[in-house]
């Protein structure tokens, strides 16, 4: 039995002239969460659909828990759950009917399917809405039902394609909690996202996909370290003292800050730099109107990774 829950070698998928995947390798250990990060059109969904047996690759192989997704798709489907953009629930049915439908399609008896639906509805906080049509659900409820529907068969590997895109922070948090609970039970999760923050919060390992290729695969910490840093942004109450402040900041951080309008922006490797900067400016009597420490954004990640690629190419 393979220790790898998901493995893929050289996956290629073309749509006419467009190459969606251009040789993707993946290895995901059992019981871990892997975050697949990339902008729209990077090939995330294509990769997920291939791994979830929904799409056949033009080249390369992939296996889920040792079952080849193209030649042993039926076995693989017994062990996986899929939720997200592409595998969804029926808006015309109620939440309960959707889950019972899935149970019945898994050849559960009527009774077992109904019982499983009731359990999942309770687990996902949907009991009150269980008998309402899904089209009346909020975005967050819908995604929770989506996730619940992918878990009816107690899958060992779950694919989540942008599970929280378009959700408000509260709904996103609720969904994160459900995903964490899933992982605590030992389920392997592959999730795609556009948000570095989400991958950072949930994933043991992050794969960055860009233009159909794996641009980087590493732990969130290592990835961020590799990307350099966080950014310290600040604005003074008195803009006239910006030059003076820039010099003070440079003295503390060791790098001259960039000036964007009234703002000073400087990369820092250590979060502890912030109090040091505050103290120094305070000592100089320069009042700070606004100060913040930013994680690298997805834009930063991509700029950094694509630059690296161009340099090595």
């Amino acid at each position, binding site marked *: 039995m393979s220790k790898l829950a998901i493995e893929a070698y050289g996956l290629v998928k073309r749509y006419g002239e467009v190459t969606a995947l251009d040789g993707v390798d993946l290895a995901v250990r059992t019981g871990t969460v892997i975050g697949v990060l990339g902008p729209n059109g990077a090939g995330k969904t294509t990769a997920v659909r291939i791994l979830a047996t929904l799409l056949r690759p033009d080249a390369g192989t992939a296996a889920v828990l040792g079952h080849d997704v193209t030649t042993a798709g039926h076995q693989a489907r017994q062990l996986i759950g899929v939720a997200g953009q592409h595998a*969804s629930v029926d808006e015309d049915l109620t939440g309960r009917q959707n889950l019972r439908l899935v149970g019945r*399609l898994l050849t559960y008896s009527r009774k077992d399917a109904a019982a499983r639906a009731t359990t999942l509805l309770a687990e996902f906080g949907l009991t009150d809405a269980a008998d309402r049509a899904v089209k009346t659900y909020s975005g967050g409820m819908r995604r929770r039902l989506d996730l619940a529907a992918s878990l009816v068969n107690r899958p060992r590997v779950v694919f989540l394609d942008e599970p929280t895109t378009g959700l408000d922070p509260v709904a996103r948090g609720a969904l994160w909690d459900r995903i964490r609970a899933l992982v605590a039970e030992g389920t392997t999760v592959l999730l795609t996202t556009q948000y570095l923050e989400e991958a950072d919060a949930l994933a043991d390992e992050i794969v960055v996909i860009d233009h159909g290729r794996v641009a980087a695969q590493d732990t969130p910490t290592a990835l961020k370290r590799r990307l350099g840093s966080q950014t310290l942004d600040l604005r003074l109450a008195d803009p006239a003292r910006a030059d003076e402040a820039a010099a003070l900041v440079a003295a503390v951080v060791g790098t001259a800050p960039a000036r964007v309008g009234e703002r000073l922006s400087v990369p820092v490797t250590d979060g502890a730099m912030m109090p040091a900067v505050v103290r120094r400016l305070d000592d100089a009597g320069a009042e700070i109107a606004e100060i913040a420490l930013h994680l690298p954004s997805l834009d930063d990640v991509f700029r950094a990774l694509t630059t690296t690629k161009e340099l090595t190419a």
Partner: protein
Amino acid sequence: MTQCLTLTWRGIVKLRRHPASLADVVFGPAIFLVLFVYVFGGAISGSTREYLQFVLPGMLGLMTLLATMGVGTALNQDIEKGVFDRIRSLPTPRIAPLVGAIGADVVRQVIAIVALLGFGLALGFRFSTGPLPVLAACALALGFALALSWVWVLLGLSLPNAQAVQGLGAVIIFPLSFASNIFVPTDTMPGWLAAFVQVNPVRHLMDALRGLMLGGPVAQPVLITLAWMVGFVAVFAPLALAAYRRRSLTS
């Protein structure tokens, strides 16, 4: 098998959830019937009663033509909304979503046929044959619809969205239904149109339905209709299944 039935059940639940589409199935035929009988009936047949006798079997044929479109739009919507992938991500037979769509459609057709015949009888339509030929007429209409539904499956899988399916569907259905003997006897049509009517499969279906419901020659039109059905299945089922495989695995 159970899985296909489950998906048919889903189609029925959806129908119940959508009062509008159910109304479409139940009242659509009734409204058509009333309009045609009372608007055109007198002018075409001299009396509305006579026209009702003439046009009711025609309506049965028209409805099967119109209703089959539902398979195409339903499949297309499932693909667009992601339900198709949900079903396919489960260990179900790959053909299950397709069979489910067709199964749900058969149920809808049966409801539509019962509704139409009920309204027809209420308006004063009378069968001049027995219960068996009438049942045979319904079965033939249903069979024709099923054979034709492969065309819609193909369109539903090949076209980008449900609107496109409906749009192209109308373009196909209107000539087939109006350029036939569904609504009027064909005597007054110009030669070129009469020639088209001669080869229009709907015309043979009509002859068969009228024969089975009102009496008259039955054997030949039924055989020709069956031949057309076999033809539809032979040509469009393989194309639709190929499109299905393509859509299932490569896009």
